[in-house]
């Protein structure tokens, strides 16, 4: 059975599930328990199809849908297969988790959630297989609207409605830019298939315009600086499975679109495109990392961390563009490997962590890091699985996050081969920035895990927290397993991804990877650099086991539990440990210049001290507020002619008519 049919079957299956779910008046718990697990089957199938599609020739078809003269074209090639795999793997986990999550809790009607959720999944799939601008835009907008409705599931809260509005606004700004990019790409032939656009020859100026429009358009969805503002608003507002799906998968569809336009349709023509992408990417990553370190809401923290990771992905793509423009295709493939692998990794660990926040929120009703703590003892499963996600996202070996960062550093280090001395000077500074971002992300993740799961519970109610159920464990375990496996066998993943590199930059890593066995990851050549996660893990485990055995054998001293030592001052309590606020304080101090910080310190003589601090995104004040003020002023001017009285409007029509008549006669 052709892969394309299978993919379309999954789309139809999801839409049907959503429609049936919306129609059946079942009880909430039953509804969640029936519809979401079976929707995971679609995700599993998509994962398999994605894997199969990586090694297959592109398949294209024309659907009997769409407008009379404008049918929908679909196509599956290695690039879309890779993103389908990502969507399937993350979507499966989210669906399974949703079965447990949506059983309880307030917010919207479960039937509506079911419909929107499945339409969202189906639309993302269609975005990935669309082969003409028309279908792409239809799917893109369906995706945006479905996710918008999911974000405002809890629409009775004014704050959530506001977050949804910001999301919708930025999404449409982006959609306009994408539409314009496609409009330029067809250069007056009125052919909207990607095939025609691939063959179109654009002048350098127009090609650059298309590239910049695509950067803005897809950047609005992915969250590139300064279009990232919707992420930290929308992610905390949405239910956790939805945040997981948006952050884990939807951001990656934007990366898909960016890669599709810049590499496949435009064929990466000028080197400065890559420099722009690299600069924007590094700025985004740095910005996200600093802001993540000072957040006190766990979902906002993860949202900023997503911005950081998307920035790293874009930086990798930019580097690949630079290499490709200079015809250094092997290095372009290496940078692209880092980019794509980081996309996949981020989809896995960020989904895992968002699901963990969902489990924590269900168990404790708390989202603020200042009110959590000590959950490792009440929720051992969530804590252990979230720990894997935490270590992976902090970029620690031998997990998957480290592999993509390692590859990216290697491609940065190979950039001195570029025949451009300006780039040779500036790219090392980029490397320094990337190193800083990676180190900061470790800080952020220790803060996240430490304040949520470790220490003493900061609220009484946390003592009643319960662990996640079987469905949640399966969902999170599935993602954690992927994180570990990709971390241990990156070579197998890169070998499977080889057709994608071939497709986009015309060179693969297969030859350089085939020089050693599957455990050895090499960059370009083994003598240049190598990394072996399996040996890494084996040595660590062996030392731990041997060490523990040796200690037991030669130093069989006992172990006893005692009250925590309190320095003789009396009872320790949970308020003595660092809050999230305290943990982020050094970063606030150091990076004060980047933050808009408003703090109130109580005086030492205050009997009822209250500490208050607020951090605002400076982008709001610098970019969005002037635009908003200008629009308001403009509408004030236009408002002069608007009076709301029908007689005046009739006069306007009459005058217009007279003017037109005067023009004609």
């Amino acid at each position: 059975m052709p892969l394309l049919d299978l993919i379309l079957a999954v789309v139809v299956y999801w839409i049907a599930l959503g429609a049936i779910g919306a129609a059946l008046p079942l009880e909430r718990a039953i509804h969640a328990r029936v519809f979401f697990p079976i929707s995971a089957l679609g995700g599993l199938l998509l994962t398999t199809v994605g894997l199969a599609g990586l090694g297959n020739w592109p398949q294209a078809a024309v659907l009997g849908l769409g407008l009379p003269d404008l049918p929908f074209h679909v196509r599956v090639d290695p690039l879309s297969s890779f993103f389908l795999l990502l969507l399937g793997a993350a979507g499966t986990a989210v669906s399974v988790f949703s079965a447990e999550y949506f059983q309880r809790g307030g917010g919207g009607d479960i039937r509506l959630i079911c419909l929107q959720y499945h339409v969202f999944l189906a639309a993302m799939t269609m975005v990935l297989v669309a082969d003409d601008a028309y279908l792409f835009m239809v799917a893109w907008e369906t995706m945006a609207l479905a996710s918008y409705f999911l974000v405002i599931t809890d629409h009775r809260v004014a704050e959530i409605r506001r977050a949804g509005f910001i999301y919708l606004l930025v999404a449409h700004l982006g959609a306009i830019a994408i539409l314009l990019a496609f409009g330029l790409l067809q250069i007056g032939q009125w052919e909207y298939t990607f095939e025609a656009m691939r063959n179109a020859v654009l002048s350098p100026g127009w090609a650059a315009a298309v590239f910049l429009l695509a950067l803005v358009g897809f950047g609005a969805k992915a969250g590139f600086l300064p279009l990232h503002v919707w992420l930290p608003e929308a992610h905390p507002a949405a239910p956790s499975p939805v945040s997981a799906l948006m952050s884990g998968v939807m951001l990656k569809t934007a990366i898909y679109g960016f890669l599709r336009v810049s590499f496949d349709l435009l064929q990466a023509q000028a080197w400065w495109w890559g420099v722009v992408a690299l600069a924007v990417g590094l700025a985004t990553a740095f910005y996200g990392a600093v802001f993540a370190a000072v957040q006190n809401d766990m979902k906002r923290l993860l949202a900023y961390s997503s911005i950081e990771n998307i920035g790293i992905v874009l930086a990798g793509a930019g580097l690949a563009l630079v290499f490709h423009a200079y015809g250094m295709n092997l290095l372009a493939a290496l940078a692209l490997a880092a980019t794509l692998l980081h996309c996949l990794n981020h989809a896995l660990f960020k989904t895992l962590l968002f699901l963990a926040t969902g489990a924590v929120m269900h168990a404790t009703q708390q989202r603020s890091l200042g009110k959590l703590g000590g959950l490792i003892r009440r929720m051992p499963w969530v804590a252990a699985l979230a720990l894997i996600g935490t270590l992976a996202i902090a970029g620690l070996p031998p997990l998957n996050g480290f592999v993509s960062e390692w590859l990216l550093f290697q491609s940065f280090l190979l950039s001195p081969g570029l025949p451009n001395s300006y780039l040779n000077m500036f790219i090392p500074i980029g490397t320094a920035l990337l190193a800083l971002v990676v180190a900061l992300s470790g800080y952020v993740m220790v803060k996240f895990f430490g304040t949520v799961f470790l220490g003493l519970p900061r609220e009484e109610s946390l003592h009643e927290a319960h662990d996640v159920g079987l469905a949640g464990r399966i969902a999170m375990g599935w993602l954690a397993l992927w994180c570990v496996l990709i971390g241990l066998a990156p070579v197998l993943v890169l070998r499977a991804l080889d057709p994608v590199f071939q497709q986009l930059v015309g060179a693969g890593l297969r030859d350089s990877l085939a020089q050693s066995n599957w455990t050895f990851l090499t960059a370009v050549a083994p003598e240049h650099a190598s990394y072996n996660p399996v040996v890494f893990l084996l040595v660590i485990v062996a030392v731990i086991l041997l060490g523990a055995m040796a200690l037991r054998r030669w130093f069989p001293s006992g172990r006893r539990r005692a009250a925590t030592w309190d320095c003789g001052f009396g009872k320790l309590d949970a308020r003595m440990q660092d809050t999230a606020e305290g943990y982020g304080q050094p970063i606030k101090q150091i990076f004060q210049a980047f933050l808009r910080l408003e703090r109130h310190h109580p005086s030492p003589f205050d009997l009822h001290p209250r500490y208050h601090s607020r951090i605002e995104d400076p982008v709001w004040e610098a970019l969005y507020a002037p635009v908003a003020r200008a629009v308001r002023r403009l509408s004030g001017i236009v408002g002069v002619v608007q009076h709301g009285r029908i007689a005046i409007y009739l006069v306007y029509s009459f005058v217009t008519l007279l003017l037109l008549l005067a023009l004609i006669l």
Partner: protein
Amino acid sequence: MLLQLIQGLLAAALAPLVLGWLNQCRAWLQNRTAPSLLQPYRVLRKLLRKEVVLAVNASWLFRLAPYIVFACMVLAGSIVPLIATDLPFALAADVIALVGLFALARVFMALAAMDVGTAFGSLGSRREMLIAALAEPALLMVFFTPALISQSTALTTIVDQFSNGALQLYPSMAFAAIAFVMVLLAENARIPVDNPSTHLELTMVHEAMILEYSGRHLALMDWAHALKLTVYMAIGIALFLPWGVAHPHEWLGLPLALVALAAKLALFGAGLALLETLAAKMRIFKVPEFLGMAFMLAVLGMLVHFLVEA
């Protein structure tokens, strides 16, 4: 493979001795009667014999962390070429992975410090992560300069290249060397960033993190800490003074390499002790400036490489 095993064990066995030497030098410089060279071994033996007292609410993470930290440092000790460059494990981890390995150990230590939920633990964890967040990029930048010169991020290849060819001076390596010493002081909780001899003071960083540990757990943490210092010194020696190390298939060079290593470690240790005696501990909020300078020096070294040497 045998060489690999020897080298890993050698690093672990030597580490307390290096610490003992450093303490001895420091005592002499400060006009104190020095403790025995073997004092760190005695402390380890004492701790290993004592029973472990765990806080009532300590979780599995707290008990696992000392083993992970120790294992990470043993692996690091096996990767860095101490006496020979013919190390199979060195292929498993290049300098970037080495930085990742230190980060893994650090993250576990910082998490374990937060586990019991005392004020000191989280304070130490926060400060340690802050110092690390600034020191780690500087360390990566220090590594990238020699990596660019030798076209490889594998430490053994770098050492082979530097020690093999004719003596060639790289100005960029001078910048890297200064930055490296600064990072070394910060990452190993030495003066002026942290003071290893403080205990129960508000200025402590590393000591605050391991305050709740006792018995064999504390022994492992202390041993790992000594091992980390030794590994850092070995990295410094490998990058900046690589001469004398045994090249592949040079079995006769091994004893010579051992002597060279001992001499270089002794010299380096004495130098560190001198630095620590001359410097005063700085305020925690001066540390970002200190590490920022290290970072800038390392980046400058890289730029010098492009301007002058490329």
